[in-house]
């Protein structure tokens, strides 16, 4: 298991090099990308985090996933700082013998990262700057698990 919080970009391919090994048949990845907003005027996305808590919160979420599904490997990378549209924000990867476990664990990781990892996003637009509000449906998504 590997959990990384960093300001710098990451490279999906290097991160996945050797991930899972030869006994895992299924690898699922999710990559979050900064996308332009509905108005099409996003200049940047600032991602603030709680340095003392971030690593431990992410590690707990990853450990919960590993306890719950049969996983050969788990990877979580989350960036902070200023990002621009098209930049990768974060990724998770799961390796398992079967696709069902790999998919479910990746969805679980994402649902918890959305609402239980101490990150806050602020959109910088030509019109100003606004904190991204948490969405009710993201909180509701946790009820699945």
């Amino acid at each position, binding site marked *: 298991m590997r959990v990384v919080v960093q300001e710098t970009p990451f490279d999906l391919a290097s991160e996945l090099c050797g991930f899972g090994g030869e006994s895992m048949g299924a690898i699922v990845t999710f990559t*979050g990308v900064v996308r332009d907003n509905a108005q099409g005027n996003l200049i940047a996305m600032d991602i*603030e985090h*709680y340095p*003392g*808590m971030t690593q*431990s*919160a992410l590690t707990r979420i990853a450990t919960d996933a590993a306890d719950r599904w049969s996983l050969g490997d788990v990877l979580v990378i*989350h960036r902070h700082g200023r990002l621009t549209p098209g930049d990768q*924000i*974060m990724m998770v990867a799961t390796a398992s013998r079967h696709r069902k476990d790999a998919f479910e664990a990746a969805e679980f990781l*994402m649902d918890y*990262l*959305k*609402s*239980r*990892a*101490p*990150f*806050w*996003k*602020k959109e910088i637009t030509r019109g100003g700057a606004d*904190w*991204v*509000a*948490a969405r009710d449906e993201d*909180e509701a998504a946790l009820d699945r698990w």
Partner: protein
Amino acid sequence: MDVLYFAWVRERIGLPRERVETNAATVAELVAELSSREERYEAAFADLSALRVAIDQELADFDAPIGDAREVAFFPPMTGG
């Protein structure tokens, strides 16, 4: 104890962290104490349903006891991922 603020809570209060000496027994008591200080605190803590709290870097409830916590943090609902 250290009290930390993140995102718009930080912006509204105007600082990221401060040292607070308190006898508050619970988070709610600490919030009441801070709110009574100045308007910017009152504004930040006006709607607790829009806030989350962590005690020593663990999510907690507002009625949780503070005990001998070293660090209490206030922030809006998280938007990771």
